[in-house]
């Protein structure tokens, strides 16, 4: 696996998707970085453990975490950053193979690919959910801590 090349390509692809979704111009670079981090995590996990579903979960999780942090720094909706990062994880090739096998009347193979594509879509959703819950807990904890520091007590 060619790391710099894949990093560059995923950066470029996520930035291009940012243009298609028309995200604010000053966030284009950070949007590309979100896409890059998600893809690199996905690839690394995939190469280490050889499980596309867990790898997609890890990728989506990282995308959502980074997007949340950037959303806090830029004070913009989180969706601006996460959208383009999610796209590379979409199981395009598996869905395509499922479709092709259906056309070729090879239904057993098609079901195999389709179930994988479905599981991967579910993994993307679960990754987003987990990241969201964890970030919310973290932000709550942080808010409590700053309140304590400033001398407020919270019931």
């Amino acid at each position, binding site marked *: 696996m060619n790391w710099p090349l894949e990093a560059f390509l995923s950066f470029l692809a996520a930035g291009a998707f940012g243009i*298609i979704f028309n995200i604010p111009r000053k966030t284009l670079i950070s949007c590309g970085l979100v896409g890059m981090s998600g893809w690199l995590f996905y690839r690394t996990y995939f190469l280490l453990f050889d499980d596309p579903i867990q790898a997609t979960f890890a990728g989506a999780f990282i995308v959502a975490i980074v997007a949340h942090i950037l959303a806090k720094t830029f004070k913009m909706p989180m969706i601006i950053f996460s959208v383009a990062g999610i796209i590379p994880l979409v199981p395009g090739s598996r869905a395509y193979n499922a479709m092709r096998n259906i056309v070729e009347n090879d239904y057993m193979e098609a079901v195999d690919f389709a179930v994988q594509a479905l599981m991967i879509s579910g993994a993307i959703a679960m990754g987003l959910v987990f990241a969201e819950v964890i970030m919310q807990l973290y932000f709550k904890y942080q808010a409590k801590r700053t309140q304590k520091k400033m001398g407020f007590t919270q019931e």
Partner: protein
Amino acid sequence: MTEISEVRRELALDCFLLAGKVMMESGAETYRVEDTMIRMAVSQNMMDSHCFVTPAGIMFSPSNDLPTRFVRIHGRRTDLERVARVNAVSRRLVADQLTLQQAYEEMTEIEKTHYLFPLWLQILAAAVASACFLILMGGGWADIPFAFVIGGIGFYIVEMVLIKTRVKFFAEFIGAVAIGTLAVLVVHSGFGNDPDTIIIGSVMPLVPGLLITNAVRDMMAGHFVSGLSMGAEAFLTAFAIGAGIAIVLSF
């Protein structure tokens, strides 16, 4: 709670509904729209307001004894810059940096202008994304120019059919058919190597990524009506793309 005058209340309602409408039309999540509207209402001393947002319309009731207002949302067009701008205006309104009148004027300004990148740049972006995905999905370097051109053409066709017919699924279907045909032709004429990766790469710009993320986040926030309808839209879009490719492959 201080009583607000009739004129001011009407202005406030117009402002909230306009904000909600612009956000919903530009592809924000339902729960964010509701959250923004309620926050703005609280900042204007409407403590017991209620708001119900679906992808097709927004209902807003300022309080129990006042009439409820409704706006219908027609087309949706992904334009996240508008979402960010409305969000910024509402933040400033809540932080008392803007008066209600100023906020309303800014909202109308945002509603009138559109911030989309020019079409040629979007097509170029789609082409670049297609070429990148060709390599990321394991395609060969020799196929890059084909994925670049076909991805751009596919995106352009979808945009054109969308403008002409206003039917999204049909546009995606036609775009997928065009992509599949071009990819198969390129390989048959001996220039391209692998039709599969060319098609996968070129189809990527059509993938309903925004709908998928929005559906998941809305479902999580408990907005099942909009979550399910956005999920259904995403599924139908994916199905239209798949059907378009399948038609080409079956010949």
